[in-house]
């Protein structure tokens, strides 16, 4: 019984982890058809921002994670969008390559600034026990954050005027322009929002995972797979694919070990894309958010 609770808890955590690290990429890919391969480094930047702001500047840890990290990455995202990405809209492969370049450059810059070692902060919430097993209480916070992020994306896109304008501009840029909306600005804000979500993920996860210059590879591979397998619908695709991969990888992990679990996730992704070439939401949740 206790073991079952632990298993469910671990699966929920894996799903939340995947949803968190993929949310920013999902917004940018789903809304703008831009694949940001520097996404992993954006997440890391959020982690670094949270660590610096808490450890060096002494700002409250929750403020560092939930406010400073997203803001810092959003600002960086705007700069990257203005300097690089806005010239490449509509050229899917070229944006992928340019952001891959950005990713490499950021890895190099992190190594120069923070050194090649891994840094972290202490989790602000202690553990609790379920029967004989002790679990990390901070994980509950991660799961809550993931749910919050998904609700936030859904709410903004569905119920606010800004979300409506953004969706309109993505569907038909010319029409949105004709109505007097500056689509270039809409793209910029959308990219900044996606970056902020990446930063939030980095900030929130910083106490759990080590933040080192090359750790971004871990995120980009998983986030990329989750988002592409999810398909073009931002929210339903994100939920469906992180749920699917979370369950698969944890099930395999329990049956064998964590490395095989990760390989299981990757194999599942290849099979899934072979069966559903446009992702889960390309097949099941067409034209939904």
């Amino acid at each position, binding site marked *: 019984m206790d073991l079952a609770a632990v298993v469910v808890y671990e699966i929920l955590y894996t799903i939340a982890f995947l949803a968190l690290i993929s949310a920013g990429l999902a917004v940018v890919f789903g809304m703008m058809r831009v694949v940001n391969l520097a996404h992993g480094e954006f997440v890391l930047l959020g982690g670094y921002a949270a660590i610096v702001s808490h450890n060096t500047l002494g700002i409250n840890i929750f403020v560092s994670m939930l406010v400073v990290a997203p803001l810092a990455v959003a600002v960086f995202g705007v700069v990257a969008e203005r300097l690089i990405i806005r010239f490449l809209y*509509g050229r899917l492969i070229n944006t992928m390559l340019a952001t891959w370049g950005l990713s490499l450059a950021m890895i190099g810059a992190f190594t120069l600034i923070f050194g090649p070692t891994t840094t972290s902060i202490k989790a602000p919430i202690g553990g609790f026990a379920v029967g004989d097993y002790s679990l990390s209480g901070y994980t509950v916070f991660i799961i809550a954050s993931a749910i919050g992020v998904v609700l936030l994306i859904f709410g903004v896109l569905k119920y606010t005027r800004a979300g409506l304008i953004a969706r309109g501009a993505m569907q038909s840029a010319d029409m949105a322009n004709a109505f007097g909306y500056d689509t270039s600005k809409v793209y910029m804000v959308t990219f900044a929002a996606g970056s902020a979500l990446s930063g939030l993920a980095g900030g929130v996860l910083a106490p759990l995972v080590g933040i080192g210059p090359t750790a971004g590879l871990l995120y980009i591979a998983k986030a990329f797979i989750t988002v592409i397998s999810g398909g073009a619908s931002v929210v339903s695709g994100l939920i469906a694919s992180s749920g699917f991969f979370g369950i698969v990888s944890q099930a395999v992990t329990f049956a064998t070990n964590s490395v095989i679990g990760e390989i299981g996730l990757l194999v599942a992704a290849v099979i899934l894309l072979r069966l559903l070439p446009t992702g889960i939401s390309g097949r099941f949740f067409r034209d939904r958010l």
Partner: protein
Amino acid sequence: MTARQVLSSVVVAAIVMFVLPVFFDVLNLTTFAAYALLALSLGFVWGYGGILCFGQTAFYGLGAYVYALTAINTGEAWSGFFLAILLPALFAAILGAMMFYGRLSDVYLAVVTLVVSLILFRFMNHTAGEQWVIGEARLGGFNGIPGFPTLHVPGDPEAYIYDENLYYFTFVVLVLCYLLTRWLLGSPFGRILVGLRENEQRIELLGYDVRARKTAAFAFGGALAGLAGCLYANAAEIITPELFGLGLAAEIIIWVIVGGAGTLIGPMIGAAVLGYLKFVLGLRAVKEVFGRENPLEATLVFGVILILFILFLPRGVVPSIQGWLGKARPGRAGAAGSGRRRRTRAERARADA
């Protein structure tokens, strides 16, 4: 390709082959020649087949591992040498068939190929234990496999080919592969392949089986990459899972972009020049100029190069030069295709959104 073109290519290649060792270290040159072959494989698959494979390292690493494992088990090199071409080609054919008959394209194809090389990377890193043995060879996990027999004169396993001779051998193989690829592109198969890159639907409506042709092209690219892996293994004399890694996967794409997709010579030059640049950035003397343990990061430089090329010279160096020459010498529109292809792809992406 006419006999005259073959002859002139061979003469130029021979001059380059004998001049380079005067200026550079032979071991480095051997490595760069292997890199150039790897770049040639992606240059063919991507630049001519229009298949953007993010995981060309999968076949490269596979070639290296197949060679090392066979060489250890048989005690001689040549069966491993040919298996290192054959097995990656077979693997590429299976993977390609799975993707192309499933109609995967663009991003989805990129993800699948990337994921496959990640799987191999993770798996090979995981094989450190005693139980991971193939025949007499331990897979060795992240430490890789050292000390396998290297290439030797056929029939005499004691007469190793090394140093200068290995360099000449690698270079000759590279030139042969280049000529083979040129010949393939001039054949009906190659012409249909280029047409397919320009407009897949039209080729299909003309009655050609697009899926089979893409699979065949992908397998050929896999064979070249596997051979490159085998040659690299012989130069380095150790192989590690890094051969499958994302870092190298990124580098290959940068070589091709910088040199120029849509040419064969461009990616090879890109690989050699950038390979040398990376080598120089890693040198102790350069590290001392910057006065710290941690030099100007090669990744930083490469990232910036990639961004600048995508923004300002997306066609790459060689097609741009050909373009400038083409203005002066009308009738050679070698590079025009790649520009047009980008635009059609952009339109398609817009239509998708």
